[in-house]
């Protein structure tokens, strides 16, 4: 493994100069630009989260007043969702890896790819503008009628989300065409790596759902600016219509967040178990299955919003269907690990964390899909814990797993494995301390988004806040050793993990045109029983 030198010339330094980065059409560089953007957003959102937890250490005021608190949780949600988690895996890691995985030189529309990054940056600037011009206190869902009445700068924030939607659509569109048209000859649909399947299912949702968010936010902006009354009951409008519109996008959007993560997990589990993936087709189809069902369940966010009982029952019933393809995936991953030779490297530890946490998140999702239970738990900390187990325990764990997995490919250097494991441990423990506690708080009736609370909740709130410090420490450690690796890490060699997908056949970091010679399909990407991968 050890004696490798990083190549002198790679996409990182060919061509040279700031300008060559700002106008690059190379998917690898655009992926990196995205990575910088989303990591900055993640840090910002993380700081908001730490402040929220700090404030909730005791009942009453600790550090900020109630209005600031409302802005903090709104901004935490909006930044994490629109600026970090939606672009995280597809636009950053997907952009970097997808063309490599299918043996292409680039995505189908490189200029559109670069444009999507600039649109993302414009969205970030708008969001920052909103932050400094009075912030937003509506919650990230911008529910009417409050969002049309509050004095905070809702328009710039919703416009930011609108603009970011375009960025997301362009990425999705680009990926769909790339996957359809640019696979190397011989790579049929069912020979594609499963991460590519994950990205494909994600791209479909991005393209089909995001325009609906676009029109929704546009209507909200027009409503605020011109008072058209479309969501205002006093003028014959309907605020519940806003919720329908919003969740028609935002429920599928949670699968925009989780599906690419599931794709990463499929790769990690196969590679680090050195075993053929179990149930390849089932995993691939279940991604499409989740994408399909995702469009039919939005009403489960609205069980107490006044939709008809019949609609609520149907939505509840349909919601349970999401459990089926998700369960299929989890069992296939477990079956892949069975009798494999499992290598507990940091990416695999993230994959295992994902399995553990996502299962809890998924199962509590089934509880919440049940009508009577949801009426009890709606808008409590139980919901907060549930979606953090799926979004952070699921997507973020998968993202971090992928980030560690491809870090040597991106930079050509290895990070320190010991520190990486310490960091996984801190993050795993800190995460559970923070959020498992919130399940308990929710069941006991602690409502979400409240500034103040009863004394009886104080011990659990405090424990959750302590957990957030452990979690924060874990991320701090990670930032240090990952950045250290870029400059001082040992050279990684083309294939440090003994993977079989194409990105491991080219040098790390890859050359400008991805491959020195075009890769060929000589074996399946998971055929560990046929091939012994070498790190040449």
């Amino acid at each position, binding site marked *: 493994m050890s004696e490798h030198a990083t190549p002198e010339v790679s996409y990182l330094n060919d061509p040279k100069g700031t300008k060559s980065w700002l106008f690059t059409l190379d998917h690898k560089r655009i992926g990196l630009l995205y990575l910088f953007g989303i990591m900055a957003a993640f840090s910002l959102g993380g700081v908001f989260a730490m402040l929220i937890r700090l404030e909730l250490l005791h009942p009453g005021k600790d550090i900020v007043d109630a209005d600031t608190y409302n802005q903090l949780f709104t901004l935490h949600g909006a930044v994490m969702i629109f600026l970090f988690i939606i672009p995280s895996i597809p636009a950053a890691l997907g952009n970097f890896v997808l*063309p490599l995985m299918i043996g*292409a*030189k*680039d*995505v*189908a*529309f*490189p200029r*559109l790819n670069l444009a999507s990054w600039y649109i993302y940056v414009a969205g970030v600037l708008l969001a920052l503008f909103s932050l400094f011009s009075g912030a937003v206190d509506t919650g990230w869902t911008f529910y009417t009628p409050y969002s049309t009445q509050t004095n905070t700068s809702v328009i710039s924030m919703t416009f930011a989300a609108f603009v970011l939607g375009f960025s997301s*659509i362009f990425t999705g*569109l*680009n990926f*769909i*065409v790339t996957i*359809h*048209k*640019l696979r190397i000859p011989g790579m049929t649909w069912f020979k594609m790596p499963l991460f590519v399947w994950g990205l494909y299912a994600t791209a479909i949702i991005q*393209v*089909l*759902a*995001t*325009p*609906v968010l*676009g*029109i*929704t936010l*546009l*209507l909200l902006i*027009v*409503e605020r600016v*011109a*008072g*058209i*009354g*479309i969501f*205002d009951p006093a*003028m*014959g*409008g*309907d605020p519940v*219509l806003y919720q329908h*519109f919003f969740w028609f996008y935002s429920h599928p959007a949670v699968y925009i967040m989780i599906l690419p993560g599931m794709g990463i997990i499929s790769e990690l589990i196969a590679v680090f178990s050195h075993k053929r993936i179990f149930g390849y087709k089932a995993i691939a189809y279940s991604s499409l299955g989740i994408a399909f069902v995702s469009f039919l369940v939005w009403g489960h966010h609205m069980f107490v919003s006044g939709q008809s009982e019949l609609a609520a029952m149907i939505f509840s019933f349909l919601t349970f269907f999401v459990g089926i393809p998700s369960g299929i995936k989890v069992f296939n991953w477990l079956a892949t690990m069975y009798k494999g030779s499992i290598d507990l490297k940091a990416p695999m530890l993230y994959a295992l964390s994902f399995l553990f946490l996502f299962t809890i998140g998924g199962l509590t999702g089934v509880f919440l899909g049940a009508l009577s239970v949801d009426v009890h738990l709606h808008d409590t900390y139980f919901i907060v814990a549930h979606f953090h187990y799926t979004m952070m325990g699921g997507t973020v764990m998968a993202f971090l797993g992928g980030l560690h997995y491809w870090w040597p490919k991106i930079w050509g250097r290895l990070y320190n494995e010991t520190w990486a494991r310490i960091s996984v441990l801190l993050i795993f423990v800190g995460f559970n301390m923070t959020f498992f506690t919130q399940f308990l708080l929710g069941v006991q009736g602690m409502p979400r988004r409240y500034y103040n609370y009863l004394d009886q909740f104080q011990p659990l709130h405090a424990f959750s806040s302590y957990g957030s410090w452990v979690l924060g420490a874990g991320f701090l450690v990670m930032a240090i050793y990952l950045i250290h690796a870029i400059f001082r890490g040992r050279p990684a060699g083309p294939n440090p993990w003994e993977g079989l997908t194409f990105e491991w056949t080219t040098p790390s970091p890859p050359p400008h*045109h991805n491959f020195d010679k*075009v890769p060929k399909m000589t074996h399946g990407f998971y055929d560990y029983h046929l091939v012994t991968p070498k790190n040449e």
Partner: protein
Amino acid sequence: MSESSPHTGFVAHHFSDAEQQRESAKLGMWVFLLTEILLFGGLFVAYSIYRAWNPEIFHNAHVHLDITLGALNTVVLITSSVTMALAIRNMQLGMRKQAMVNLTVTLLLASVFLVVKYFEYNHKFHLGQLPGRFYTFEGIAGGNPHIFFSVYFLMTGLHGIHVLAGMAAIGWMLIRTGRGHFSAAYHTPIEMTGLYWHLVDMIWIFLFPLLYLVG
């Protein structure tokens, strides 16, 4: 990729040939059109809901739209779709001059559409048949008649923005054709612009009966 691949001037480095590039552009454009349909889809849903809740308002308000002008605009847009298609056909046959003429006619027809729309809007502004809190007209029976005009201005307004975007695209194609960027072998951007323009027409073809005709 082997250096022998047919990379003439217009084929980007990451495509193996012109066919793959054209197919990719086409698929991309169709996916984009899909997103446009979904964008308008939200408004069509809003239309259906408010119409179902306020049938009498929609009936009483829609008679204030000018069917003649609406019909005129429909004819104008359909004709512009024909000239757009002709421009593409011209370019496929390598008839550059002809293509430029047809693109110019398309552009003119699009302008006619917007001018007619301007007069319609102007008339409504004058009468106070406006959305939401700006509504001041007093000739329509029933509660909340402004809802119809909210929906009307939202739908035709968003469509109008798309007409403008289409005109920008067609204008750009006209310039590029003039500069000799296209030929019988390569004219994908004009074809894509054509697809977009047809979609803009198609949306109007739905808007016209829904707003002007259905009572």
